[in-house]
Each structure stands twice: as C-alpha cells, then as structure tokens.
C-alpha cells in the first residue's frame, strides 16, 4: 500500500501550504528549542556545568525523579487495570469511568492543584485530622506526588483501552481453557499483546510527570531545596533573573522531550509493523 501519491497535482497551492507549515514549525517549535540551548550556553560551557552544582539544583532533580518514580508505576498499574475492565467487561458505570479517566485532561492543572489544597489543606475537614496526626500533604512531597498522579493518570489507560478493545478477549479465553491461571494468562497472553501500547503510554506519562508545572506549583509552595521540582525551580530561577541556571535546567526538560519523541516514534513504527503483519 502506498501512503502518498508520488506527486500531488495542483501546482502552486500545495507548495504554499507545505512552506507555511514548515515555517510555522520552525518558528514555534525549533526556534524556542534552539533558544533554550543557546541561552544555557551563553556564558560558556563552564557556567553551564556550574549551574548544576548548587544544592537546590540537585534537590529539584531528585524530587522530580522521585515524583516520576511513584507516579509512573502507580498510573501504569491503574491504567492497565482500568483498561482491562473497560475493554473486557460490560458493567454498570462503565461509560462514567471512561469519562472520568479523561477528566484530568479536560481540567486546567491549576484547578487540579486547587482541588488538592481544598481537600487536604489545613482548613479542610480532612486537613484537621491530618494536622492532629502530624501528616503533611500540602506544601510537602506527598502533595506534589498526589497532584502529579492526578494529572498523569489518563495516559496509560487511554493508550490501552482502544488497543485492548480491538483485540477482544478470545485469546485470553483460549489461555484459560488451556488451564492457565489468571496471572499466567495476563503475563503470557495479555501483556505481550499490549506491550508496545503500554510502553507508549508509560513514556507519555513519564514526560508529563517530569514536566508538570501548574498543579504541582499550587500544592508545593515552592520551598527551595524541599518542595521544588525541576519545572518549579526553573520558574523560581527565571523570576530572580538567574537566566543561565534557568535555561540550564530547561535543557534537561528539553532533552527529556527529545528522548521521549525518539522513543515514541520508534514505538509507533513498531506498532505499525505489528499491525501490518497481523492484517496479512
């Protein structure tokens, strides 16, 4: 099958459209990306390295890694479980669950952060209890993790639901009829069938977990060295005119984005190849 006709007829119009799209991409995507690196290295290589040396930089990177290390596995588990029950079973409230999974994508991250402050903050019902038991959620690491989990939870589930619905449950039933236990069925049949979709969901989830600003900014209180993630730290630096360190930290997120894109493209290519052989 050919994806494109080799030459599109129609003269000048396609040329204009293609040129406009390329200019748009260059202006809004490539230029800012280049600018980040140019700014980060504007005072030379040594200044770039020095920007990482501060105690706050390391603690921000550490906190971002910890947050992702909790949020990504949690949402992977949740995503697989939710996709499984939505794709393989019909139950009361199924449509409501599908809609709710999309909620974090529909809601502004700032509002999501506010929800957590309202729920766990000192003036809330739950907050009083938490204070009594000396548990700190808002303006502390647990709050950051909660907000990140909330914002990133659709990614894995949304990737898997259509995939699992398309595959149906025949192979799973076959595995059970051959004597497999539920776990054996999942590990030997379900998981290999969804692996690329799952990986795709996980890297998108990870990219968002590490890059999330809005929701985390509301719940964290941006305490340097304590509750600053990389995006929050960048903002703090930038606001205090520390341009080189700010852009240096930004190169980390930009690199993460580029790596994510490479992995994403590779996986997309693999999925396409699998589909092709499956439809033969």
């Amino acid at each position, binding site marked *: 099958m050919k994806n494109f006709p080799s030459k599109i007829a129609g003269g000048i119009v396609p040329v204009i459209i293609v040129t406009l799209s390329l200019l748009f991409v260059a202006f809004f995507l490539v230029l800012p990306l280049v600018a980040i690196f140019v700014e980060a290295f504007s005072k030379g290589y040594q200044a770039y390295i020095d920007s990482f040396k501060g105690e706050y930089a390391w603690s921000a990177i550490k906190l971002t890694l910890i947050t992702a290390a909790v949020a990504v596995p949690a949402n992977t588990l949740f995503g697989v479980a939710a996709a499984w029950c939505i794709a393989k079973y019909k139950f009361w409230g199924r449509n409501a669950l599908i809609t709710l999974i999309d909620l974090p994508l529909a809601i502004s991250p700032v509002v999501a952060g506010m929800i957590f402050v309202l729920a766990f903050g000192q003036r809330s019902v739950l907050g009083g209890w938490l204070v009594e038991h000396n548990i700190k959620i808002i303006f502390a690491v647990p709050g950051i993790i909660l907000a990140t989990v909330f914002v990133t939870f659709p990614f894995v589930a949304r990737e898997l639901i259509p995939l699992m619905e398309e595959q149906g449950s*025949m*192979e799973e*039933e*076959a*595995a*059970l*009829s*051959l*004597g*497999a*236990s539920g776990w*054996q069925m999942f590990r*030997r*049949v379900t998981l*290999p*069938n969804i692996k690329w979709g799952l990986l795709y969901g996980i890297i998108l989830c990870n990219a968002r977990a590490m890059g999330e600003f809005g929701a985390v900014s509301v719940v964290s209180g941006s305490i340097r060295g304590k509750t600053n993630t990389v995006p929050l730290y960048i903002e703090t630096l930038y606001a205090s005119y520390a341009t080189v360190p700010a852009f240096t930290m930004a190169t980390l997120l930009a690199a993460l984005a580029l790596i994510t894109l490479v992995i994403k493209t590779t996986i997309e290519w693999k999925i396409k190849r699998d589909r092709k*052989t*499956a439809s*033969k």
Partner: protein
Amino acid sequence: MSIEIINVTKTFGNFTALNDISLEIPDGKLVALLGPSGSGKTTLLRIIAGLDVFDANPKSDIRFKGRSVIGHRIAERQVGFVFQHYALFRHMSVFENIAFGLRVRRGRNKFTRQQIKDRVMELLHLIQLDTLERRYPDQLSGGQRQRVALARALAIEPQFLLLDEPFGALDAKVRLNLRRWLRQLHDQIKLTSVFVTHDQEEALELADEIVVLNQGRIEQEGTPDEVFHSPKSAFVMDFLGSVNLFHGRIEGASVIFDSDIAGKKQIFVRPHEIDLLPVNPNGAGLSTTVRRVQLAGSIVKIELLDKSKREIFVELSHEKYNVYRFSTGDTVFAVPQKSVVFEEDYSI
C-alpha cells in the same frame, strides 16, 4: 452419558438465549448443535465449557461423566475449546501455541522440556503440519490455523472437544477438505466432541447426532438420517434443506392443492420429491409455468410459478429431466411424491 445438561436457562437482560434446555451428549460421539444465528447454540457450547454461566436455578445442572461441574472454572474443566476465529496467540510460534497448555501446568503435573517437545511434535504430525512449528499464526493459511487451534486444544488431553463454528471462517473448498479430515480424526481418536454450526450440510455430513436449536429451545435431536427424513416440526424441515410450502388438503394418499390459502393445511414437499408431468394425472397435479431451468450441476434445478405467482423449486435427475425436456414458458403439472403436514402454522 459423558455430558449432561439439565434444565439450563440463560438470559441476557430481556433476551432468553436458552430456554430450559436438557440434553445428553453420548460418549465418543461427534454431536452437532445446529441452528440459525440467535438460536442459542454458541451460548450452550460456552456454558458447557465454563466460559459463560447459566442462570442460577436449583434444578439446573451440568455434569461431566456423572459429576456436577457447577462452580468449576474453565481451567478445571479440562475441555478443549476451538474458537470460531481460532484465537491463536499471535505473538507465539505454532510450536509455542500448541505447547501453551503444557507449559502453564504447575506442581506435580509439570512437564519436562523434552516431554513438551515430544507431545507437540506428535500433535504436529497428527495435524499434518510437521515442518511448520516455527511459523507464526499470521504466516499460516486459514485451514492451517484451524488445525493448529485444534492441536492446541488436544494438547491438554481434554475430556471433551468443543468447537465453535469450526469451519465458519474458511472458503468453500478448504472447508470441505477440512470437514472430511476432522471426521477421520474423530474416528481415529474417538474423543467426545460437540461442534456448533449454522450450516445444515456440514451437520448432516459430519455429525453422529444432530441437535437442532431454535430460539433457545431444542426442536429435535437425532441422527442425521432421522432429522432429515423425519423432521418433527416445520422449522426442522425448513432448516435442514430447501422445502416448498403448499396449501391444500389430504384425501387418502393424494394431496388436493388449493390456491386459496384460507383455512387450508400447510403441506411441505422437498424439491427432489416432486415429479413434473406434461398432462395432469387424475386431477392431482398443480398447474404451473416453468420460469427457469438450470442444467449445470449434478442435478437439474427448475423454478416454477403457480397461478398465484408463488415460487416452487424442483430438483430432477438429468435422466428424468431428459424424458420431457421442459423449457421456460411451458405449462407443467407438479405432483408431490412425498409430503409432510404439520399442525402448527409456519411461515417460511
């Protein structure tokens, strides 16, 4: 009796898929569950396998070799299930597909690597695909996939073999070959088997016993010969081959046809049990006009129209046809040789 189904009912919301079904599957036989779509045949098969559960009722039971299997999960029932679209594991080779049921065994029944290999090779030989163990399902033809699915089901040494529309997804020629092969295989391994089909020809050719289902009820069960030649209901007669419906009354041995439907009995006659004559013998024939004659094939198929423009289908041997050689537009008299009357009203 190897499988007993006792008073089983299954409803999906308002729809009754199975209505108080009781059925016994005899040991060592190949049994067909035959019916149109929506008759409940696949539901019944899935309930036997444990893939679906029937409506809770103290009277209902399913027994394997005399023992109830209620509450037994599909994995414990030890039935080989062949799915309609094979459901082969797409990411596993033919070898791994067949070996799956052996690999998932745990504890005392665990197989050694060599035992698994021997068993898979033996099965590959049985399904005549000896050299294809490294292929993946998407590299096989429909017929080959079907046989791999069968081998995979047989690998666990099941008590019974259950097949859901085993030939449904194959083209006509492959289907015919595979059908004969499956029959030979059954004669060879003598495993009690139940298969679901909507194709009467398939059921008649393949099965030792046929269970005809309609709207969640069993219409008739018996040998292919019984259900074909002595149908108990108009539905069975109609479903197991083509049939003509006439209206009239029976006087002694002959049928008096009447074009006026009201109040008359329904008379069913199979196309091959009608004679065609150029003159009306003692007034018993039905006057018709030839619409079309189809000579290609092992028999001659003739379409007739009666006075009220109803279609009548007749099948004659070439020998019989050659006596009069009717052609389109001729007036002929149709004389049923054998007819069946059912009390109930039925519309085709």
